[in-house]
């Protein structure tokens, strides 16, 4: 990115959180992980932080951020990663440290992705044996 563009991007203000629940993000996350229902979380916030909020609002808050998390996974990679990909079949030495770091990452064991035990295609008719 050239300097002029950099300055323009930097000049853009951060978007401020619009939900009144934003300060309680971690509280909601923890309670949800403790399998508390939206109703219970609503009661918890009312009792302990005097915040009146409907269970459906908390649900929407969680749902929107869950979707945002999914989207983040599809964002563009950072420039270093992109460069390494370009150089993958070319000249890794030219990329110096970042290619080494990426190589180290590649060597790390990957989390095992479990294959579904069963697959059924709803669009295919049942077939007799």
């Amino acid at each position, binding site marked *: 990115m050239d300097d002029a563009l950099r300055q323009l991007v930097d000049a853009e203000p951060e978007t401020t959180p619009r939900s009144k629940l934003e300060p309680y993000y971690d509280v909601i996350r923890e309670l*949800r992980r403790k399998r508390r229902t*939206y109703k219970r979380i609503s009661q918890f916030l009312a009792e302990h932080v005097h915040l009146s909020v409907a269970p*459906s609002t908390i*649900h929407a808050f969680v749902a929107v951020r869950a979707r945002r998390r999914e989207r983040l996974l599809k964002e563009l990679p950072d420039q270093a990663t992109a460069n390494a990909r370009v150089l993958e079949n070319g000249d890794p030495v030219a990329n110096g440290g970042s290619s080494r770091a990426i190589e180290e990452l590649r060597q790390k064991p990957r989390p095992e992705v479990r294959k579904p035990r*069963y697959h059924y295609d*709803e669009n295919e008719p*049942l077939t007799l*044996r």
Partner: protein
Amino acid sequence: MSKIKTEIIEPESRTAQAIHRVIFTMGGKGGVGKTGIVLALTDWFRSNGIPITLLDLDTENKARGSLQHYFAEARKVDIRTHEGLDALIDSIDDGAEIVLADMGAGSGQVTYQWFDAMHEDLAETGVVFTAIGVVTPDPASVESVLSWANRLQDRVQYVIVENSITQPADFHYWKNTEQAQRFRDAFHPAIIPAEHRSAKIENPARQHGVTLGQIAGKKTDLPEFHRTIPSARAQGYLRRLCDSFDSVKEFFLP
């Protein structure tokens, strides 16, 4: 009558000792007899003195056909609301060890999403799930069960009821298709039969919200059920169903 087969397979995600069990009907295809099976299972729990919490999650069915019509204490829950299926866990928080929930037709998508969001954490706290699928000679009933299994995978244990809603009943699509065989191989469901029941008992029972247990024990005000024949028949139906439930009780207890 089919031979009862049981081979319990533990859900992969079962990491803690089971403390609570949530049993629910796979509510895909309507009119296969899901509620009838839940009613008989309720009679089985009660005859064994096992306390359960009943949830009526059938929001599609008219009042007359749903669980609450038979058991007033069954809590009606609209699963399409934001908190919908959280009711299962609310009941456990309120002290229930076993929750028996009757899902309505077309409840699949909501249930899948809820499972995806909640199951992992719930499994760690000792909640296990049993999904009851009801198959009939209609291939759509088989497809419905397989669709649910495709989404729920091994996060639940499966009990399949072969419900003879016709006489004779031919479960060709359940027994002889590749997809159903792969399901059986993958999850080793408990498979139990439910024999054909006389319309003279089924229809008035549904109309008036009376269970087989009440007919068998003549605990109903309806004069047509005070005679010996319907009472004896209901006793027979219920006894054979309860024998089947006994044979797979591991799927119904924590």
